[in-house]
């Protein structure tokens, strides 16, 4: 007998196993409780990076080509 009203043992065990599984949301809460937050890059790193990038862009787009070539 394997219909839903008269399930066999395998059907019942599959359904039972489903009720036992740890929900993903709970698992994520546990994982986050274990791993301390990974520190982000410091603000000064981004500031310096942006400064270098904007300087390079400005130089490449505003300096005449011969003068730019002479710089390198």
């Amino acid at each position, binding site marked *: 007998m394997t219909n839903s009203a008269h399930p066999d043992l395998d059907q*019942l*065990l599959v359904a039972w196993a489903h009720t036992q*599984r740890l929900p993903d949301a*709970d698992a994520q809460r546990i994982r986050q409780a274990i791993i301390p937050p990974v520190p982000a890059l410091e603000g000064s790193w981004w500031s310096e990076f942006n400064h270098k990038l904007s300087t390079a862009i400005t130089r490449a787009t505003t300096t005449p080509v011969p003068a730019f070539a002479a710089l390198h």
Partner: protein
Amino acid sequence: MPPSRDDAAVFTQIFDQHRHTVHAYLLGRVTDPELARDLLQETFLRAWRRLSELAPLPADKQRAWIFTVARNLTIDSYRADATRQAAEATLHQQAATQPTTVAGPHLHAEFGERLAQLDAAIRRLPEQQRVILSMATAGGLTSRQIGEALGEPAGTIRYQLSQARTQLAAALDLEDDP
């Protein structure tokens, strides 16, 4: 020292690979879902602290390492009388109330009733059989993998599973067809 992004990624991979089976094992041992979650967290906290030792191991050795920790934590929790008594109280309380909590509203009423009977019967199984059944069904492990995790021959695991199924079929008045 704060963790690196690589450490976090390696740990997450190990956590995701083993969390279902370890949880199934712990639930089989203690039967109390809240205690099982606490022990799961403690197990993986220790894995995190020993990540440099654990990460290089192959998956089967990682599983054995993690299950050793989980088993020891379960034994420790048994030693704490208050914890054990709370778990037993929860066990009895859940056995009494499970028919309304196991059956989801989407399930046919009769199916839900049979599911509740199964849950109660599983809780009455000897602990080792309950653990193995939980690892096989909820954890999705093969007999060989369960054997490796528990330090038992696969044949012993298959025998215990068969015994558990026979008892469950008898308790539910079902024909077992393994």
